[in-house]
């Protein structure tokens, strides 16, 4: 912050608030992590204590690795999330480009129609979706999840991206047209790199709910081969007995890939890489 404008008290207050918020936000994650390394009794006796020599145990992780096909679940979650993000970004960006770039009859109406999904939760249509997936034989495949999540993610993606696409300089696109670039090349080579921060935002917004979702995997793809991580972890939660060690260990491991993906996308949020194109 600028020395002339900043006042030490304000800076301290701002940092204090941010640090407090960070602690509150990270505390549950921290509790999950420490408890996943403790034996069952100490989880309940002293839930906030760090694991020490006495209470340290990896029994939770052992249970997770021995019971159920944890790696398969992991892989399923990853495939579904990454594939969905790919399709949401690809189709979302293409639709947004069309809405932002081309004048055609019903442009506004089409934009509204595509954005409607933001307001209507897709879960309302669960029964119809299930019937449709049964009819097409997609039930218990990963495709069923990818398709549903893509449909769920597109409205917000189109809404956000079309706003950003409108800001991309017309002169740049026209320069491409005069140089003989096709509309696809203009889209992929000129426009997409310039809206990368927006794409990353959309990716982060979509990624976390998909990774954590229990609803659609439970209804559309509950078979052993297609279970996602969240669904797979449910085996440890029973009506009467819950294996907390295993649940906490599974959750701890589930955090990792999302964090990796988040780091990848958030790097794209850095602006200024593309400055100098116009003006």
């Amino acid at each position, binding site marked *: 912050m600028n020395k002339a404008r900043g006042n030490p008290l304000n800076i301290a207050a701002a940092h204090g608030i941010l640090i407090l918020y960070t602690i509150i936000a990270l505390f549950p994650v921290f509790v999950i992590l420490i408890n996943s390394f403790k034996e069952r009794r100490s989880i309940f006796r002293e839930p906030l204590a760090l694991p020490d020599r006495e209470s340290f145990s990896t029994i939770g992780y052992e249970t997770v690795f021995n019971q159920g096909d944890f790696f398969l679940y992991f892989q399923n979650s990853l495939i579904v999330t990454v594939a969905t993000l790919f399709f949401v970004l690809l189709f979302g960006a293409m639709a947004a480009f069309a809405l932002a770039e081309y004048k055609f009859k019903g442009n506004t109406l089409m934009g509204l129609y595509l954005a409607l999904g933001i307001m209507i939760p897709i879960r309302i249509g669960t029964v119809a979706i299930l019937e449709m997936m049964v009819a097409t034989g997609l039930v218990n495949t990963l495709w069923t999840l990818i398709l549903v999540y893509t449909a769920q993610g597109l409205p917000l993606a189109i809404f956000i991206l079309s706003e950003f696409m409108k800001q991309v*300089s017309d*002169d*740049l696109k*026209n*320069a*491409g*047209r*005069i*140089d*003989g*670039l096709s509309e696809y090349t203009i889209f992929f*080579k*000129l426009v997409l*790199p*310039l809206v990368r921060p927006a794409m990353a935002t959309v990716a982060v917004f979509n990624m976390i709910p998909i990774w954590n979702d229990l609803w659609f995997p439970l209804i559309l793809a509950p078979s052993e081969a297609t279970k996602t991580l969240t669904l797979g972890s449910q085996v440890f939660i029973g009506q009467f007995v819950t294996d907390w060690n295993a649940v906490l260990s599974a959750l701890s491991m589930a955090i990792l890939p999302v964090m990796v993906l988040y780091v990848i996308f958030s790097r794209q949020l850095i602006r200024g890489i*593309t*400055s*100098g*194109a*116009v*003006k």
Partner: protein
Amino acid sequence: MTALSLKNVNKSFGAVHVLKDINLEVEEGEFVVFIGPSGCGKSTLLRVISGLEDTSSGEVMIGGQAVNSVPPAKRGIAMVFQSYALYPHLSVRGNMALGLKQERQPKAEIEARVAEAARMLSLGDYLDRRPSELSGGQRQRVAIGRAVVRKPKLFLFDEPLSNLDAALRMNTRVEIARLHRTLEASMIYVTHDQTEAMTLADKIVVLRDGRVEQVGSPMELYNNPANQFVAGFLGSPSMNFLPADRVGGPPGLTIGIRPEHMRLATDGRIQATVTYVENLGSDTNVLADIGDGAQITVRLFGQHSVTPDAPIGIDFDDAEALYFNAEGQRVNATSGAALAM
């Protein structure tokens, strides 16, 4: 051969009629400037010529061929934009070579043309830099280079100097003039800056509300404007207009005199009060109130000391005065008949 000819070109966006029956010829090697106030359709006309916009009706011919349904890249044109519009992810070399690569020119040919353009625009040291690492003037030179390498039949410039500061604007203007001389190419240049228009053009096209008001060489337009709009638009400070009967002329007409054709004379035909004096060193502009809220400007060469609020007399030579009728058309002072332009 004509480089470009437009025949009854019309363009409407929905109900808005932007270009109205434009007819124009650009000869081979000619430098033509489109000038007019904002919103007069000059940029739209350029976009119609480039193919970025379709015509609503009429014919566009480049190098003798009708190009109405030819895409921009195949029209044999190159365009330089106001905002440079460089490809941010490509180096200077890449920016200049992209159009040629799309045309599938052989590699050696691309290399040679890029090197030649870089030499011409003194960009040799920057070929491997990205646009973000260049200054505004360098960026605009790259944009011009990108047009030059394609060896187009027709160059289109869309206010290329508007984003540059005053000193750079002057340098780049000279550079464009030099480029025109060396390449002997046909160029169309859109601007709202009359200095650029007057200095660069072989032929100026003055546009207003989507119509061509007058076409001619800079001096022809300056000395012999066809109507009051052209007379008032070209020249800085702009031409003075006052009712002719105030100075003993025929009633109903408007008289136009350039500020530099007026002089201070104690017993002059116009009596006025000085409102403001601009001392520019090389010349002095005296703004004076002639009553009824009308203002005139007198441009005096050299330095003069004129006191604001003092009464002055102003006079002019009748030979330098132009007469306009109520519709703004230029007319003969004695007969009142419209002059054929």
